[in-house]
């Protein structure tokens, strides 16, 4: 039990340090660096040209499809891990179970493939 708690205390220590460090360094930078803003400096960078239009462009729907694919597969792996840990104790039945499970994943993959989800076009 102590080990369990201590481990997370360590993680917390890392977390706090991880937050404090950027704050400290950015504060330090602020003390050291010059600060002379002007309008030209603050324009959006577009390779030196004046910015055209807004940045809220309509980007490709593919990104969403990838996001969906990711959500599906990443969450399925949540089930893979407990299974993998317990695999040796559970034997053949677990294998069959996982063949079915992963088989379904594969079908999902093939489905997306056939529906041309992975075909990337433009941007």
């Amino acid at each position, binding site marked *: 039990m102590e080990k369990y708690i201590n481990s997370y205390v360590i993680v917390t220590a890392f977390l706090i340090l991880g937050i404090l460090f950027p704050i400290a360094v950015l504060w330090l930078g602020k003390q050291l660096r010059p600060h002379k803003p002007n309008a030209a400096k603050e324009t959006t960078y577009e390779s030196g040209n004046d910015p055209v239009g807004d940045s809220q462009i309509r980007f490709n729907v593919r990104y969403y499809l990838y996001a969906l694919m990711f959500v599906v597969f990443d969450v399925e792996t949540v089930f893979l891990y407990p299974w993998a840990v317990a695999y040796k104790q*559970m034997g053949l*039945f677990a294998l069959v179970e996982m063949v079915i499970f992963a*088989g*379904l994943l594969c*079908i999902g993959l*093939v*489905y997306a493939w*056939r529906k041309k989800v992975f075909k990337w076009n433009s941007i």
Partner: protein
Amino acid sequence: MDSLQTLTWSDTWYLSPEITLSIVAILLAVLDLVLPRRVSRNVIGWFTLAGLLAAAVFVILLIMDLKDSGTTDVPQQVVNLVGGSYRIDDFGNLLKLLFLGSSAFIVFSSLGTVRDEDVPIKGEFYYLILPAVLGAMVMSSSGDLITLFVGLELLSITSYILVAARKRSSQSSEAAFKYVVTGGVASAFILYGMSFLYGVTGSTLLSDIYQGMENAMLTSEALLYVSFFLMISGFAVKLALAPFHAWASDVYQGAPTPVTAFLAVVAKGAAFAMLYRIFFTFMTQSYFSQNNVMSNDVFLALAVLAAAAMIVGTAGALRQRNVKRLLALSGVANAGILLTPLVLGLAPLHTSLFNEFFYYLIAYAFMNIGAFAVLTIVSRDTGNETISGFAGLYHRAPWTVVGMTVLLCSLAGLPVTGGFFGKLFILFATVQNKTYWLAAILLVTTVVSYAVYFSFIRQMYLRSGEIDSGLRMTVPATIGIWLCVSATLALGFFPKPIMEWIDQVFSWPYDMFVS
């Protein structure tokens, strides 16, 4: 959890309907992928139908098997799988049979009426019905909150997709989005309720919860109340009970008509199955343990919901011109009626009232599927989903109209139809239970609903329409409609054999009472 129990090969027989559906669904998914584009996807529809029927056959065999395996002491055997988290009992089997049958009807009637330009993903459209039914089946026969929830979501998520199947119609996707949001919120509520139930009883297994209820009622009654009322609100959304019904009309309107029928019958029935499983199990505990305050409160809340559903559904349907929205509201009212046997709860002469419920559910399934099939044909022909699309239909298709009249009479609860006896049985139970106010509401709303359903009849017989040519029917739809009509009439003329059969198969201490 004691030891980990897994499925064994011998269990597969008890799971054969579920397994059949899964395998067929997967095979069809693959088939849809490899089939060349030019091949009509109706093939998949036929295979879907075959899968549903095969599963139904397995369910019937299981019912017989369970009956045979009973002894004199224990009339019917209940098979507990995976440590009791999945139950094969006649409660589940009967409902499964209904789900499979209704879905088969819906698929069959829609063969040929669903058009490619309307539903571009026809292959998916058909085979996605299978996992949806599977979800409904899981809901109806699981003995564990987790399994229940997984079944619920399997059904819900596939339904979301089915609702959105009219890809080119923004109405369809709008409906689907609304369904996703309301469905998601409802799931969250149910789940939140379940989490409290788990918390105060320490298990997700229904039978363990039943054991734990007694203690929980003493130690954390407030949390139990919270749990039940959260679940009630969630289920009320799923069942489209007023005041949680607003989504139903939108979703029904936007969805492809066969899917609407599916939602109205299977999705609703499955939610009822879940409601029965959860509430009956726990309320009996409350009822028996001298502390029936809780069961009274819960049942009263449900009764109020049922009454509100009847009133709001009927009143809303009165003013509605769009047929699908109208049927959605009628479904709201019917959900109230279907809920009534449940809310009557337990009384000396009333054990579960499942018989009444199931009889009306059968009648409800047939009349709704039939009505939606007619609607599909009519709206396809006239391009009009409003009630005026039915104008003068008598002159165009007299026989179909007669069939529709029977279905409408059944919906209105007029004799001699299935709807009449269904309502009569429920009403009798209500009166016997001395819940007169509910009986009165049921009756009054039924009468008001005459105006709703007879407005169709008015259009069909008394008005003249703009089109004179005959109505274009498709063969499967015609057969489907007439099967529904005959079934409705058969339920009306011969209620006895069906009730007897239900009574014979179903035995509440074993099938419902999870302990």
